[in-house]
């Protein structure tokens, strides 16, 4: 009896270690620990004010939107390096169309989204049909869109459009006196939509299947080509959306906006427990990844004496630790 129990708990432990949800739980746990640490250390500075927590969403909404797109790509085992450049380009395009061409923001937004999605589609098409590494193709995209920024203007364009200002400054009130920005609400809506698509649609399951084994997915008769191209289209769309949210956040277009942001997005996805090899991970994990990265920034701001570069160091250490965890987990799974 007791022996049997032992075996059962042993089996349970193995199952826990192999459970694909474990990395998400680890990240969520890490977030709670970090938050608890902040609450303890900076209690007297108002860390426990609900708005501090909400600001995580307000300050990182654009990153969340981009990271959700990156999650789709990484789930198929691909990578999208063009994210930051597409964001930067979207801010420029939006600022230029609104300020210099006088188009209404509500018309400009769908144009920008369409351009981002089309850029993603093209990269996906090249990746699939010419069988080129996504790393290379999206690297080309990175240079291309960053270059396009400078074609529009070499200088920053600040936005004075009243619609943009109103959207940027609107507070969505929450119970307890705190509030969210429109951008934060949009990014959470995108997250919810992505969750639904990945878990309740055939397209979403194909994304997982391709990440699990592309060759198998093909031989199972799944439309691999269409799915792969769609995934890069989704990422391009999310990058453009992220660019719009970033425009609202900064209220300007600048050719140097969001340089290297693709790396933050990838870091958030990986810290959120999605395997870079594809097929395993949850978009909810990406939310926690973004929150953890955001919380690092917040903690360093509260500390006050630390240079902001410590954010990068902490992110680096964290990423490294999570990749090691992924590695040991996949190694265990294989045996």
């Amino acid at each position, binding site marked *: 009896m007791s022996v049997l129990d032992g075996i059962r708990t042993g089996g349970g432990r193995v199952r826990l270690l192999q459970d694909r949800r474990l990395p998400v739980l680890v990240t969520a746990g890490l977030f709670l620990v970090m938050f608890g640490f902040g609450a303890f250390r900076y209690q007297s500075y108002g860390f426990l004010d609900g708005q501090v927590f909400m600001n995580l969403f307000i300050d990182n909404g654009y990153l969340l939107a981009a990271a959700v797109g990156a999650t789709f790509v990484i789930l198929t085992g691909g990578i999208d390096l063009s994210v930051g450049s597409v964001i930067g380009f979207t801010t420029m395009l939006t600022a230029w169309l609104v300020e210099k061409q006088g188009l209404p923001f509500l018309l400009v937004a769908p144009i920008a989204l369409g351009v981002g999605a089309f850029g993603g589609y093209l990269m996906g098409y090249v990746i699939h049909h010419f069988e080129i590494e996504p790393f290379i193709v999206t690297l080309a995209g990175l240079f291309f869109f960053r270059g396009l920024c400078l074609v529009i203007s070499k200088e920053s364009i600040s936005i004075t459009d009243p619609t943009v200002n109103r959207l940027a400054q609107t507070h969505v009130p929450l119970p307890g006196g705190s509030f969210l920005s429109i951008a934060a609400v949009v990014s959470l809506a995108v997250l919810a939509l992505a969750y639904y698509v990945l*878990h309740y*649609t*055939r397209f979403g*399951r194909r994304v997982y*299947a391709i990440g699990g*084994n592309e060759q198998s*997915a093909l*031989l*199972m008769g*799944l439309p691999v080509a269409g799915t792969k191209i769609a995934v890069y289209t989704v990422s391009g769309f999310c990058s453009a959306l992220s660019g719009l949210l970033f425009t609202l956040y900064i209220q300007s277009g600048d050719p140097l906006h969001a340089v290297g942001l693709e790396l933050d997005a990838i870091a958030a996805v990986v810290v959120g427990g999605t395997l870079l090899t594809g097929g395993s991970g949850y978009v909810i994990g990406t939310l926690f990844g973004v929150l953890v990265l955001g919380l690092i920034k917040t903690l360093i701001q509260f500390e006050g004496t630390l240079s902001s570069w410590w954010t990068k160091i902490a992110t680096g250490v964290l990423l490294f630790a999570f990749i090691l965890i992924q590695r040991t987990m996949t190694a265990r799974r294989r045996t």
Partner: protein
Amino acid sequence: MAEPRPVLEMTGIVKEFAGIRALSDVDFRLFPGEIHALLGENGAGKSTLIKVLTGVHPLDGGTVVLDGRPVRITSPLQAQQAGIRTVYQEVNLCQNLSVAENILIGREPVRAGRIRWKELRRQAAQLVTRFGLDLDVSAPVGSYPLAVQQLVAIIRAVGSGVAGDGGAGSGTRVLILDEPTSSLDRDEVEELFALMRRLREEGVAIVFVSHFLDQIYEVCDRMTVLRNGALVGEHLVADLGRVNLVKLMIGKDLDELEELSEHHGQSQAGETVVKAEGLSRAGAIAPFDLEVRTGEVLGLAGLLGSGRTELARLLFGADTSDSGRVYFEGQQAALREPNDAIGRGVAFLSENRRTEGLVPDLTVRENIILALQAARGWTRPVPASQRDELVAKYIAALDIRPADPEAKTGSLSGGNQQKVLLARWLLTRPKLLILDEPTRGIDVGAKAEIQKLVVSLSEEGVAVVYISAELEEVLRLSHTMGVLRDRRLVARMANGPDVTAGRVLEIIASGEHQ
């Protein structure tokens, strides 16, 4: 009906890869309610034929007629829709998804675009039960052993779109099983065969590819034999004996083989160089015992894919073993990588000399010196004078042409490339030399020279493991013979006048001999 209409007729099928003919003018037909074996050595074109039929590779010529109508199948999806279902050699499932998803992905039950998970699990569970399995369909497929995964793949292949209609295989016209049994044990094979027979009774035409001749004779009704991408013949299983079948697959007449064999009986048994006990690797080679002494040539015979190369790779540490021990000169050795074996004096000439041995863009001199330099470590370069002397010596000894140490190795003929590789390894003064197909694809003269070299090396006391698809060559050179069949070393015997090509062929065909 004297001659029922075939469900599938492929005529004059041609497939080329980069100008090389993988299939030339192959005919293949399939009748409903039969199990049809597709046979041939590795590289005979079985997998290519299957991939052409299932739309993975486009057709370069020929026609496919399904149910009396000509069809053009251009994608796996289209093949599935036409009722051609396939289970490939490698289990083609997504390890990260659940059993239920793997069975039904691509045809999940949806309502307004939303997957109905409960219904999906219910349908999957129903299919699994119908095939007599008891699985938790929501568990990841990767958590089950390979054998179960194989059955899941079959359930996926034959499970119809909607559970609940007709028999287990409704909707399936043709089921292709490419080496489905290589990862199954005896009981699991029985289960699979029972399933195959049930599907046969339901009128499904089954294509069965297997290396295991026993299984062919147990379950199949008809067979088609391919060799070198061409059709050799179609026979009823009952009409063709095993020895004749093996002859068809190898493409040599028995008498012709008898004539060629010569014997090389005297084994000057020296000390044991290498000894393996129960060495094995799952899916590659079953546990085997082996011993090679100084000056002994051990010849390994068997069909392509019978595990010859896999055995050699274990001895060289190119693959790690799952079980068993290896001893070199009496000392147990743990071979984790080739370097462990090289350090103990093992040299291995791979069968793929172009991809796994030679660096074609380096000169003959550089290629020859490579292994010696590796053995010394990169920090201690071989002095130039010594290097040139050694290279010159081996170019002369092996008669490498052109005798120019600065020639690009890639420009040499196959036989001379092989000699360059041989020189490279001889330079390290190996105690055990493993030659995997050293004479494949080289001309007759070079072949004879390499064979002579092997004899003289063994006279100098080098232990040699000699692998070749050419039975006569193995018979002529070996002191001891090992015969492999179905990834198992089935026989070991001293070479002598009584060991003939016919006898070895019989062992390959039957395996009763131990």
